[in-house]
């Protein structure tokens, strides 16, 4: 049997990343007021769930399980992140929106990179991997203008 130790570690970590991203997106979805953003976040949640279930399925096929304990810790870390005040104590800080969009952009970029790495290494079905890359890329393209608009809105006050 081929040595799949590194693949297992890589896949586990990317599953954690996507589950953390999904939790973050779910939290943002709860706080979002704009319709466009809510729709997009719904899609982000669905896509990250699909991505993590695809990687979990790959993990199963190499004889490893889903990283359940570490997933719980990631969920905890996302919740702890809520405690960051970002300049306001009582109300939600507008900077939080930007920070979260930044973080989500990084998660989607990393998720895309993970599937691209699998595609390059030719360890997984090209069709399955390409499907995920295309979906994530489409979401990233739509997320970026929202992130930049948020940056302009929040940071523009400093002009």
């Amino acid at each position, binding site marked *: 049997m*081929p040595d799949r130790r590194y693949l297992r570690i890589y896949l586990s970590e990317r599953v954690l990343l996507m589950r953390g991203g999904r939790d973050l997106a779910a939290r943002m979805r709860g706080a979002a007021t704009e319709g466009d953003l809510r729709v997009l976040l719904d899609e982000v949640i669905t896509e990250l769930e699909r991505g993590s279930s695809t990687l979990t399925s*790959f993990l*199963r096929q190499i004889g490893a399980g889903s990283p359940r304990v570490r997933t719980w810790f990631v969920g905890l870390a996302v919740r702890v992140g809520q405690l960051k005040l970002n300049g306001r104590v009582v109300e939600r800080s507008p900077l939080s929106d930007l920070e979260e969009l930044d973080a989500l952009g990084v998660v989607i970029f990393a998720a895309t990179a993970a599937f691209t790495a699998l595609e390059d290494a030719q*360890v997984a*079905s090209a*069709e399955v991997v390409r499907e995920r890359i295309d979906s994530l890329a489409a979401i990233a393209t739509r997320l970026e203008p929202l992130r930049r608009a948020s940056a302009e809105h929040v940071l523009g006050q400093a002009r």
Partner: protein
Amino acid sequence: MTRRPAADEVLDTFVQIRSLARWGGGLSIAAWRYVTRTVPIDRVEETVAGDDPGPADRPVPGDQANLQPRSRGAGPAMRRHYRVSVENPRMTAADLMTSICRDPNVASPFEVARFVKTSGRLGEMIAGDEYLVWMLGPWNGPVRVAERTSTSFRLATLTGHMEAGEIEFRARDDAGRLVFEIESAARSGSPAFWLFYGPLWVAKEGQLHMWASFCERVARLAGDPATVIEVRTRRFPDDRGAPVNRISRRARRVLTTLKDRPINFEDESLEEASPDDGWVVDDHCTSLGQEPVGPPSDGGPFAIARGLVRDYEFADPALIRAIYDPSEPLANRSMLLEGRFLGLRFLLGVRVVRIVDDVVERNGCFVRRWGWSYRTLKGHLETGQMDFEVVKWLDTGEVEFRIHAVSRPARIPNPVVRAGFRLLGRRLQLRFARVAGERMRHLVEARLAGTTGRHHAPAPAVHPVVPRDAPTRA
């Protein structure tokens, strides 16, 4: 003797304890699910004399050395058939099989079996891929994907598996329902396994639970819980499996070079070929029986003959057999024909150049036809093309097997072979066609009657291989 580091010993002990804990946990869960099963199992068991009439010992791509076919097993041959119907499916048969092929674990009861891929890409299943099925206890089951279609896949057992044979998973859309079936044709992998399977009964019951649970999960995946699982077991104490033939090293070597070999005549249309141009044109036709008027019926002579033609089973292995890689699609497939005459073996390269699968009009009648053609490659003793077709006259229901051959001798450098071919080639050519027609008729009749027809077909003509030095995937 060097002493192993203490850390390695601790790790080994941990792995052993974990495995034991998994087996213990798995066994407990499996036992619990077995006794608390709510979906009824409709069982039928019978013992049948003679050979197993169903498909068995079919071609498997890849290295033949580590295959574990039925002939290498122990105990009687068993055919087990599991079936579940999904009344309101939310997906088609093809979609369901795509999901299962992407990860068989979606339907596998994790406490009993887990599919771990040992060769091939994750997230897909293609012929030649290999899995190790982790099972309860110290016997994991290595298998290789022998065939994959849009609605089915077939696994063949490899050395060390507790069974020897094959298992097919298939689904079909049936008037608004979705029917999923698992069919295995196997013997126990060794006398020890047979002890657990037969007299001690444990393995047989465990296997039933495993595949019945698989069917239940498939039904849930398809959108509707199963109401009943049908399990039919037939025992064939007389059947010991088809004998295994070996492929010579020379044949393997030649097969690897075929892809680069050109066709050994100018690329010309042979539709109008005639003896005036030096071609020998032969047409042979054998009646295979009658079907109801209209399109070919399931399991009828046309469907049976089509499978035989696809797998080159019409050729008598005493005269000729085909060696090829079945994972290569039929279109453009390079095949090595191993001709046998007077104890000599001739390796003849051919390439599939055409597949027909259509309805055409002939003499004012519509004909459904399926078949393929090959052309001879450089090094062949002849030049030309052979067409093999199964046709059904839609207005009368008559099914025929047709061979159309256009040939002329190739330039043969070896004077002895050249003289021998001039003397006997034509006679052998005609004999091949006559025997192929007779063999097709016998095989179709035998399969319609529910027997294998092995009296007429003592060994499979087809011996697919993947060359050992063929590039492998990650």
